[in-house]
């Protein structure tokens, strides 16, 4: 089968046609840059912290953020990569090796922080203890601690934005999860720029891959020759997200454009959700323990840390 734009062989069939390698790469990069510009994700004087894991999404977003900076004259010194080592055996150490190599080859400074140093225990050791009293799933614990560590270290390095590799599939899953669980306040925090209002205590998180499907991202890394080995988090199947992911992939296979439809409909409703949340006037203060941002006296990360200390 030939590309819709030239005679070369097709590598992907999209809703609007078939694309060969070169036309796909151009289309993908153009889509990411248009997303950055349309939603003003990156300003010319920003200091950018790219949240990385060494997986396909974060390597792609790191590579394209660097390319965007070069295109728009943002100094190379304004970009660095930040990785969080959760302490999951036979998983994270493999992706961090790929990440380190990737950053060295492209002269991107990389900072790695770990749950063990930040919170006293690896996720593997903390999960059974916290789960015992709270029934919290590993993904719940990991999510809280990751956001905590990323925000803390991004701020420490003077970053004005945290760039993440969230893609269209991640966003569609999060939207559906929040609808199924009636979490309208969490839904209001989604979108290409996370969060409802700007606050100095939080570094805003932005998502340049917002309109890129997971399959497109994997294809991009393959065609660019990025070293991405498949490693599976041993906890991933325990999460609610896994079920939603499977459901949406089945839907997408039967009804092309489902994920994009979910995200586009959501974007149309997002201003209303954000307005509703703004009216609630949630107070953001400093956590009594770690002095990081929190909407309670003690932040969620420190509450879990206390459980570990008491155990």
């Amino acid at each position, binding site marked *: *089968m030939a590309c819709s734009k030239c005679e070369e*062989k*097709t*590598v*992907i*069939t999209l809703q609007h046609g*078939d694309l060969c390698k070169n036309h796909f790469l151009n289309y993908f990069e153009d889509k990411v840059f248009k997303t950055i510009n349309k939603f003003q994700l990156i300003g010319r004087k920003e200091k950018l912290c790219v949240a990385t*894991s060494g*997986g*396909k*999404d974060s390597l792609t977003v790191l590579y394209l953020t660097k390319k965007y900076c070069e295109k728009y004259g943002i100094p190379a010194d304004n970009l660095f990569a930040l990785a969080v080592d959760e302490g999951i055996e036979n*998983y994270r150490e493999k992706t961090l090796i790929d990440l380190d190599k990737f950053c060295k080859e492209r002269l991107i400074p990389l900072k790695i922080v770990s749950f063990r140093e930040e919170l006293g225990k690896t996720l593997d050791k903390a999960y059974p203890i916290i789960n015992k009293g709270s029934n919290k799933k590993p993904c719940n614990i990991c999510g809280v601690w990751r956001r905590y560590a990323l925000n803390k270290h991004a701020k420490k390095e003077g970053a004005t934005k945290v760039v993440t590799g969230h893609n269209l599939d991640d966003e569609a899953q999060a939207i559906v999860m929040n609808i199924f669980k009636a979490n309208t306040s969490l839904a209001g925090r989604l979108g290409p720029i996370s969060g409802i209002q700007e606050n100095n205590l939080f570094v805003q998180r932005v998502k340049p891959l917002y309109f890129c499907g*997971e*399959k497109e991202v*994997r*294809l991009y890394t*393959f*065609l660019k020759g990025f070293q991405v080995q*498949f*490693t*599976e*988090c041993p906890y*991933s199947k325990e999460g609610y997200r896994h079920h939603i*992911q499977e459901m949406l*992939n*089945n839907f*997408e*296979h039967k009804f092309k454009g489902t994920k994009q439809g979910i995200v586009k409909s959501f974007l149309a409703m997002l201003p209303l959700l954000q307005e509703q949340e703004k009216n609630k006037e949630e107070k953001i203060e400093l956590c009594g323990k770690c002095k990081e941002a929190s909407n309670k006296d003690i932040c969620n990360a420190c509450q879990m840390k206390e459980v570990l200390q008491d155990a």
Partner: protein
Amino acid sequence: MQATVFNEKEQETKQIDFTGNSVKELLEYLNINPETVLVVRKGVVITEEESLQEQDCIELLSVISGG
């Protein structure tokens, strides 16, 4: 049709014998949703509509992140 299939997610290579001659039919036989894999032959990505040859060696790369 006979083919050798390496599944990245399972880290396993299998010899299979199925009825059909396209990538689409191969994935149906293996009960794999095309949304979740890239199909590669001789280092080149091929689409669902592509025809397969007898004794082709196929790699199925996982699209879904493991995290």
